[in-house]
């Protein structure tokens, strides 16, 4: 995972509930659900951008953890 992976549309698709991945990392599951709820009532481009960055940052910071690594592989394969 590199910083350029932020440009992958999968992050936006995840937070907008357009793509589904069976996540393993507990922090990722909770954050993704919270972001999806937030975007139910506000889908402005800036809100989507902020949400996708937040999810990406969580995985980027935790990319050394086994369960986060599993999720990153699944997410980037989508």
């Amino acid at each position, binding site marked *: 995972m590199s910083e350029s992976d932020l440009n992958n549309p999968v992050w936006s698709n995840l937070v907008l509930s357009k793509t589904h991945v*069976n*996540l393993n990392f*507990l*922090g*990722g*599951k*909770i*954050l*993704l*659900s*919270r972001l999806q*709820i*937030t975007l*139910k*009532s506000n889908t402005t481009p800036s809100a989507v951008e902020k949400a996708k960055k937040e999810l990406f*940052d*969580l995985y980027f*910071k*935790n990319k*050394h*953890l086994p*369960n986060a690594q599993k999720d990153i592989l699944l997410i980037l394969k989508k």
Partner: protein
Amino acid sequence: MKKVMYKIDEVINMIRQDKKLLLAGDEELLKKLPDGNWIGGSIPYFMTESGGMVSKDLILVNEIPSFVKEIKCKSYDIATIKNVYKDGFENGFSVIIIPGFSETHLSFAINAPDYKEFATKPLIGWISGFLLDDPNGKTAKTFIGSGKSVSDKNAVVMHICLPSEKYAEISTINIFDQGEGDIIEFPESGFQVKDAFINGKKENFVDYVTRKQLDIRLPLVADYSGMMINISFQNINKEAKTVEFYAPVFKGISYKQASPVKDYIKQFTQLIPDGGTNDITFSCNCILNYLYSELEGKKTGTITGPITFGEIAYQLLNQTMVNIEIKDF
């Protein structure tokens, strides 16, 4: 099986040996402890090496392993609790104890998902409490580094820094799953609700609970990307036509009531990971599981810890066991 329950003299000795401790016990016992590297919370209910137990004479001790590089104990009030994730070590985890029914508890429960760096670092912990049938009407307490530091307002946190070859991972054991019933949503977030949308149709929630004769020992369950999050019923106020919960419901989340559980111990032990529980550094379980499943004297596998007024795995949970394990990369 590891001993976790200690007499006060034994705990005082451990503190004097400069051990780093997470403590749970009766308020009056914790008040007698000397200065040292410890945080604690009031609670008289425990899951011990010999099974579920109520005690005002023993203290439950979780010792932080000696390989830990550094700890930082910090107190948070309602204004500063928002920094709890940000303040954690980059490689480590944090253990939090919040006094039950304090403003900090209520604020954390509702606002944690909006705190800076939410969920980026492992945060585990519990809500402190008191003996439910205590005639003296005590409040829940927390302690940080001294018996004199007692507070019924502030959260206490031990931020723990791990060596680079180790990492911490939070897991939960939740025997509840969403049942087959109605989809329940709420127009506002909070601990107390008046109305709900039942399959999209607005109805007073007390009327709904009464009409459907819901067993309120079973929580409402939300599916957070595959993680089941429980919201436990606290009280049905028929006069005010309100329902109170032990954790807030959130606007925008779909809930279903949990399916009934036949045998808590059997279902629980089936969910304990195959690898066992040797790496668990800290664990806690919910007072409602203890009461409703009559866990006094019964063992939940080999897992020990305080029985609490709420569990925290990144955010506040109900009727869930939370664990943190330290593993090698």
